[in-house]
């Protein structure tokens, strides 16, 4: 299980790019932290989610 925005999700083994695509995220509007560190967008396809990872996906919305 991977903890994604506080929820337990069976995403281990997937690449970050695949998970984000499946979950429907707009890559232009997000920032992703894995175990406390920001993940550069250029590496999304290389990062493989592991059991116990903690992922925070921030989806930005408009207004300011």
């Amino acid at each position, binding site marked *: 299980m991977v903890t994604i925005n506080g929820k337990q999700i069976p995403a281990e083994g997937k690449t970050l790019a695949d998970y984000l695509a499946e979950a429907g995220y707009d890559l232009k509007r997000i*920032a992703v*932290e894995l175990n406390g560190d920001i993940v550069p967008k250029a590496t999304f396809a290389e990062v493989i989610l592991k059991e116990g990872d903690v992922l925070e996906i921030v989806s930005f919305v408009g207004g300011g």
Partner: protein
Amino acid sequence: MAVIPSKQELDDALIARHGAELHARLSQATVAICGLGGLGSNIAIALARAGVGHLHLIDFDRVDISNLNRQQYFVRQLGLFKTEALRDNLKEIAPYLQVTTSTVRVTEENIPTLLAEPDIICEAFDKAEAKAMLVNAVLKHFPDKWLVSGNGMAGKGSANLIRTRRLGRHFIICGDGVSDVEASGTLFSARVMACAAHEALAVIQIIAGDFENVNIKE
């Protein structure tokens, strides 16, 4: 017209309120504010009032009639660059505040030089894509700087939903996380100011050192 107080008189008034040690920390801090709209103009005023010593104001845009509903400008400033209009307004609150202005659009390319100086960076844009671009670029180029971002303050839902969360080591995000201006269509000063106040207070806490011994995420 009142006589402008001396720097010493203004410092003394802040020291009486905050104590010498906290005032010294605040007066030595440099904070960059990226975007001078509803978030940024209100953050700047809160930090100037708190006695933050140096603000770097960044925005490419001019004051527009559509800004008056929530941004800290006056009718007589319509058409002026926001950087210059806000600097003038801040000087009426804190005449000895050091202000640097950059009337440019923030891009992935100019972030490494534009934001090299400040210790703390406030993301205060209005477009979701611009927010994400800045946050990703700052966390990539400057992982040791503090970054405070505002996300989700449109509409007229309860201000109690707006909160401050620490995400990364040096990354703090304020807002309700979901209220999109594209969906709600409205932006009220009262709610945008609430989010700006969260951002400004997070900056004050960072400067005060309140986060230094906190390792757990909140």
